[in-house]
């Protein structure tokens, strides 16, 4: 039968199954292929903390959502065109995300009594008419996969493990995409440890593809043309990988050795894994006994003249705070990466949130001002962490780099920068003995000298006790303490001198400005693009610097009647803006462990545009 091809501008596909079913793997592969054929892509991995929760349970459902488009996109999509549900639990958890008349592909072999019960279905939804408003495609994936692998020398459970590639083969067919990229990936991925799995996975991938072609079940395939990108070389990149490359680049461009101290924690561990691979760049990664030791080695390395970096998530940052404060008073360069996840306490480790901003700003004893930079999207992690390193080195201060699970794990196409265009980073170590004082400052930046051990004639002592101005000797003098508190605050404030003018997207003045930071960028930009194109007086400012704020921010805010601040917390930036500028900024807050949907912002925007 001849299949019909339909052109569509964009599509959103959600792969869902048991954790361990391989939804993340095939989702990532579909993303890679879509990026390679030129689509713009945005992804949302959504998985449980348990490695393998009980099979078939609602708690164990792992999902990967991919939005690919022939136009520029900023989010993984509010709703899905296609849902691939490998079992009843995956269906139950994700069905609400499927558009009316959307395509629902299910592994019907998994819809037996036990799995239905585990998912809380009294009746089989494939038979009770409850899925009428969708295009349902029940496929016996378990059996078809086993048939395809009949001759493979694998035991049954190993064969069943391959069936995610059967599903991927189907989706590649549905969107007219080549299997080559996936086949190449399978060959590389399994080459060393599991070469016997290469052929079976390729076989079942092809089987899924051929199944769609051969059966009458599927009559239409869809085409999503490449998107328009500015000229350049591109790759697909996830936020954590982007952070890794930003750190490697900063070390490379500053000529400093990178020493990364860390303790495994979701969702920051990928940074440790990533950096550990690049030993040929001279990078030292130290997996320490705890979070405190992890920041401790980074501080020691900084004292010794290396680029000291530590990375963690909220709970780890709580443990590190005393040591970060030491680096603050010792005025040593240090970069602290906080890949935020949903809290409080252990919270929801595999879900996203932005609720650590005030912890980073205020969560240390005494007056302890630190610069804070936040990445807006996966590709922005590279530039932001690079800038964090530059500021840390130039101003001799710890810098907080904020990312969050949503952008850390999400991926999008990245135009690879030219190394020659990266900003200069000059460590400027002190070597001059004459006139050296440990706390004698640069008059412009107020940075103190970086005099590393091993330098003849600069022997000196630093520590966590209050310092005497200039000499750095221990001092309990009342006036000196106040002066030092003021100098440390002023040093951070002066960083604002190098923040570029605030860029306002959309309307430059008018009724509504949406002010955001971090991973809310995509949802905000989508809404503002749509509304501004429709002629509405709406603008968007997205802050990279959360401390200090850009010097012109107050003036920008005054140009708008309403300032709306969407955040995945209960109003952290909102509080800061209100207190800094005495403006009645409005909060739009969500703390569900999930990013904003575009429609959630749309309806809020209506309130301020129409009135």
């Amino acid at each position, binding site marked *: 039968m001849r299949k019909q091809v339909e052109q569509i501008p964009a599509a959103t596909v959600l792969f869902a199954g048991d954790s361990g079913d391989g939804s993340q793997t095939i989702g990532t592969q579909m993303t890679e292929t879509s990026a390679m054929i030129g689509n713009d892509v945005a992804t949302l991995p959504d998985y449980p903390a348990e490695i393998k929760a009980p099979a078939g349970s609602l708690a164990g459902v792992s999902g990967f959502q991919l939005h690919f488009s022939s136009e520029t996109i900023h989010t993984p999509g509010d709703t899905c065109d296609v849902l691939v549900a490998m079992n009843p639990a995956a269906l139950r958890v994700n069905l609400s995300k499927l558009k009316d008349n959307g395509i629902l592909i299910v592994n019907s072999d998994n819809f037996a009594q036990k799995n239905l019960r585990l998912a809380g279905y009294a009746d089989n939804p494939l038979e009770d008419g409850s899925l009428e408003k969708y295009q349902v495609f029940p496929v016996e994936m378990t059996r078809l996969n086993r048939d395809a692998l009949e001759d493979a020398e694998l035991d049954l459970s190993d064969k069943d493990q391959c069936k995610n590639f059967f599903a991927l083969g189907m989706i590649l067919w549905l969107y007219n995409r080549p299997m080559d990229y996936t086949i190449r990936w399978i060959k590389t991925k399994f080459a060393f440890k599991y070469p016997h799995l290469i052929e079976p996975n390729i076989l079942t991938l092809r089987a899924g593809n051929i199944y769609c072609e051969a059966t009458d079940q599927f009559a239409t395939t869809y085409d999503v043309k490449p998107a328009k990108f500015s000229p350049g070389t591109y790759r697909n990149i996830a936020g954590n990988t982007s952070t890794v490359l930003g750190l490697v680049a900063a070390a490379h461009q500053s000529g400093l050795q990178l020493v990364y101290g860390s303790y495994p924690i979701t969702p920051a561990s990928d940074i440790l894994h990533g950096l550990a691979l690049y030993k040929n760049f001279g990078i030292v990664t130290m997996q320490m006994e705890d979070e405190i030791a992890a920041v401790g080695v980074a501080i*020691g390395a900084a004292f010794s*003249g290396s680029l*000291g970096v530590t990375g963690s998530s909220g709970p780890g940052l709580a443990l590190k705070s005393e040591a970060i404060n030491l680096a603050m008073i010792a005025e040593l360069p240090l970069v602290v990466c906080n890949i935020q996840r949903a809290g409080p306490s252990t919270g929801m480790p595999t879900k996203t949130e932005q609720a650590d901003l005030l912890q980073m700003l205020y969560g240390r004893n005494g007056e302890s001002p630190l610069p804070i930079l936040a990445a807006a999207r996966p590709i922005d992690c590279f530039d932001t962490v690079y800038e964090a390193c530059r500021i840390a080195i130039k101003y001799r201060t710890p810098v907080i780099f904020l990312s969050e699970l949503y952008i850390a794990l999400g991926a999008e196409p990245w135009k690879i920068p030219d190394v020659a265009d990266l900003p200069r980073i000059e460590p400027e170590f002190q070597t001059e003995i004459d006139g050296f004082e440990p706390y004698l400052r640069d008059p412009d930046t107020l940075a103190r000298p970086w005099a590393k051990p091993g330098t003849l004639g600069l022997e000196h002592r630093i520590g966590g006790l209050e310092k005497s101005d200039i000499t750095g000797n221990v001092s309990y003098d009342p006036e000196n303490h106040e002066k030092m508190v003021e100098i440390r605050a002023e040093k951070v404030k002066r960083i604002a001198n190098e923040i570029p003018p605030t860029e306002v997207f959309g309307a430059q003045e008018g009724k509504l400005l949406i002010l955001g930071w971090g991973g809310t960028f995509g949802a905000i930009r989508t809404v503002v693009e749509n509304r501004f194109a429709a002629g509405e007086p709406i603008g968007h400012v997205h802050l990279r610097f959360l401390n200090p704020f850009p010097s012109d921010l107050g003036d920008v805010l005054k140009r708008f009647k309403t300032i709306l601040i969407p955040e995945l917390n209960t109003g952290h930036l909102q509080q800061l803006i209100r207190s800094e500028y005495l403006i009645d900024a409005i909060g739009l807050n969500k703390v569900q462990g999930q990013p904003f949907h575009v429609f959630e912002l749309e309806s809020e925007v209506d309130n301020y545009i129409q009135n």
Partner: protein
Amino acid sequence: MLKVVTLMKNRRSSGIPLGVPTLTQKDFTTDQDPRWCPGCGDYSILAQTRRIMPELGIPRENIVFISGIGCSSRFPYYMNTYGFHTIHGRAPTIASGVKMANPDLSVWVITGDGDALSIGGNHFIHLMRRNFDLNVLLFNNRIYGLTKGQYSPTSEQGKSTKSSPFGSLETPFNPISLALSAGATFVARSLDTDPPHLRSIIKYAYEHKGTSFIEIYQNCNIFNDGTFFPYTKKETKADNTVFLEHGEPLIFGLESDKGIQLNNFQPEVTTVSNGTENLIVHDQYAENTTLANFLARMSDMPDMPHPIGIFRSVQHPCYEDLMTDQIASAKQQRGEGDLDALLHSGDTWIVE
């Protein structure tokens, strides 16, 4: 496989290399006056450290003293070297970073019983097992001094202090046992009141390639005066301590008339006049820690003398050397890191 042979660097010998100007004790003294209580054992440890430093022949700019929090941890302010007075319990972590970032530095961790074994206990054991080439001087006074007299993790059980008016409930740590159990490659004990011994142990610690741990019995004359007097006072010291010498039998006593032998896996004091052939002979270079552990536990036994000296001294690869070798071999196999190639790694596509 790592080439262990290249990592097992030979025991280094101290001494002043030719051409290096001779430093004196005074060169290691800063303009900051020590603020310890008069009569504190810390003064002696500071004096011996300043005195031995010139003999080690290390360029002064390559020396770093790193401390945590507590009376002992003020030490770096008084040594005219690089110094970092850090936070409570965390000196081992910062020292590890300093050493890793620049393995040429001579790193000295100054800590106390509370700093190393209570708040920093976790870092202490991990420092011991990593075996960086650095030195740890633990000033053990069995009390919290800076916070004015609470029991510490080495205080004897039942000790009455401000925070334990009816007696402390906990079994004390034995720092030597703890270090040995954690895999320390050099473990020794010395006394604040025995300057020549303390200097020699510091020198041996420096010469040892790997983490060198020294427990120093130190008197706090304000909050815990006399806790070590049986082992440090002239009149009682000889009968209550046994000085460890490699290859020598364990003999002690004012008249050198007592020895230690093994009886059913337990140490037992015997008289030397009965013959020395059954006495335990010390072997500080034994890879197996059975003897070292056995000696360490003697100080928990009321009728046994406390061993003073080197319990263990063995050569294991150092963390920083293993890391340096890994980096060198990665560079050899994959070439010096090329940033542009790294940024372009994986699947890429070109938009014209």
